[in-house]
């Protein structure tokens, strides 16, 4: 469960302070599917980064599964990211020199998982996302859709409860974009929280709960009552 209370975050751009987030309150319960929409600069990516513990809020309280996440130190936050959160990025962020399989395996390696166990989980993940035949290809030999599948496999291999997707289809054509979205929604059906940032209203409407952001505030929240 994600609980944000009075979250504020500002950046210094030149001499001006830009308020990316201002007093944002948000609660996301287990198994929810949430899309965050809004024009660029409205703070939706910053919100996602704060939920994902990639960024620290200047003010407010963030509780993740009843733990005060804002008070954790670097190592503890890294552990939370490792075990509870999976990221899917617009630009995939695959390591170019590693093969698809090695990219997927990376979180397991960083976590120090035993090689036999690694192999087992890796095969499962590649199979599940239909990229087993591409396992030994490097990212530059894969199509955009395939790259994003590899990225999703990487995001889910540690079996996190939360998937955070930042414009996951932003670099894909419509067909592969829909494929990727189907995969993400299937993950949600398995019980994972899915938070997706997008500027495409059509995609955003597929989510059960939709949030509109304007100038660092939540403008509308279709699921606030729920």
């Amino acid at each position, binding site marked *: 469960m994600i609980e944000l209370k009075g979250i504020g975050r500002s950046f210094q751009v030149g001499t001006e302070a830009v308020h990316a987030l201002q007093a944002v309150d948000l609660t996301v319960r287990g198994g929810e599917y949430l899309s965050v929409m809004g024009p660029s600069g409205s703070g939706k990516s910053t919100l996602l*980064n704060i939920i*994902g513990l*990639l*960024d620290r809020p200047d003010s407010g309280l963030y509780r993740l599964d009843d733990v005060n996440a804002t008070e954790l130190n*670097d*190592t503890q*936050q*890294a*552990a939370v*990211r*490792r*075990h509870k959160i999976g*990221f899917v*990025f617009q*630009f995939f*962020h695959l*390591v*170019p*020199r*590693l093969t698809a399989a*090695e990219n997927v395996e*990376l*979180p397991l*390696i*960083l*976590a*120090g998982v035993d090689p036999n166990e690694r192999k087992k989980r890796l095969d499962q993940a590649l199979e599940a996302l239909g990229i087993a035949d591409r396992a030994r290809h490097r990212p530059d030999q894969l199509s955009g859709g395939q790259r994003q599948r590899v990225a999703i496999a*990487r*995001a889910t291999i*540690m079996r996190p409860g939360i998937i955070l997707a930042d414009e996951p289809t932003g670099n894909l054509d419509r067909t592969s974009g829909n494929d990727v979205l189907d995969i993400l929604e299937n993950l949600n059906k398995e019980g994972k929280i899915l938070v997706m940032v997008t500027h495409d209203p059509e995609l955003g409407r597929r989510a059960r709960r939709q949030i509109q952001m304007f100038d660092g505030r939540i403008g509308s929240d279709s699921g606030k009552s729920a």
Partner: protein
Amino acid sequence: MKTFDVLRFSFRAATGYPARTLLTLLAMAIGVGAVILLTALGEGARLYVTREFTSLGTHLLIAIPGRSETTGGPPPLLGETPRDLTLEDALALKRSSAIRRVAPVAIGSAPVAWQQLEREATIMGSTAEMFDIRQLSMAQGRFLPAGNPSRGSAVCVLGHKIKRELFGNSSPLGERVRIGGRRFRVIGVIAAKGQSLGLDMGDIAIIPVASAQMLFNTSSLFRILIQAGGREAVPRAKKTILKIIQDRHEGEDDVTVITQDALLKTFDRIFNALTLTVGGIAAISLAVAGILIMNVMMISVSQRKTEIGLLKAIGSPRSQILRLFLSESALLSLIGSFLGVVLALVGTWASLRFYPNFPVTIPWWALTSATVVGVLTGLVFGVLPARRAAGLEPVEALSRR
């Protein structure tokens, strides 16, 4: 993260950018190789000199008339002329148990003539024991006969160069040469041994010491060569020599005794200092290699910003990123150092092949310390880039492609 996986990840990262990695390795290899090779050259020079000195003879002491050590005080008001060393002084030394052999040396210059040929040469007066002390060997005939040193017989031994100039290829044995107007029968020719301590043994004629003193009309000796009973007997021999000569010279301590060991030690010190200096200069190239590693790793960090951001996003704490980047520079410097060792080995092998007389040897301490310092350099200079990588803000690192 498992250590093996850290190493594998770093290795893959290094091989992922081959040009960059090869250049770094090259710099490191040259740095480490230069340190090892130059110390090996210094060590070779030291061994070379040591070997040359040992060829003078072993456990050698040289007594020279006069005190040549300065004491630092003002010169005495009344002139203190050193007493000469005499043949009797030399013979008296033989009584000590610390001394095995004694060879008095009287030296002068005189023309050596046979038939119509005449040549100016160094004439050395000595005894039969000179042969063993200086470890000479004969090309023809025999050396001066043993016998009473104070009785001079009219025989001489020629250096190989003089022999060739006077006699050509024919045998000189039994022929009579004139040395300074006196006739000497040639009984032997010294084999070519080269120059030792500035005295060309080929350009010399050796006659009995008493004959030389008669020839040059003197009772003094140029110096006395003494061979001690063994290596450990050298200091005792030195003391005994000083004592005996002092007793014979009415209590005046007026000779200087040089031991071969002391000479050797001096050269040893000089060459050690030289080796260290040269090694130190080479160490600069090692530092340069270290800075290059730092630069390369810095570039690598900015090139791989996204990757670092991603590692953080999928759960790497700062400490892990630090470890990954440190192990990468450690790996680079380790492999580089190893290549440097190989380079040095090839270098010494080549040097030995082309100059077999110059014993270039890699001292083990240089090998290990250069390798250790090489790896440490990589680690130390790797800290800054690794810290920069660990300190990157993930949001910023991931923001743009």
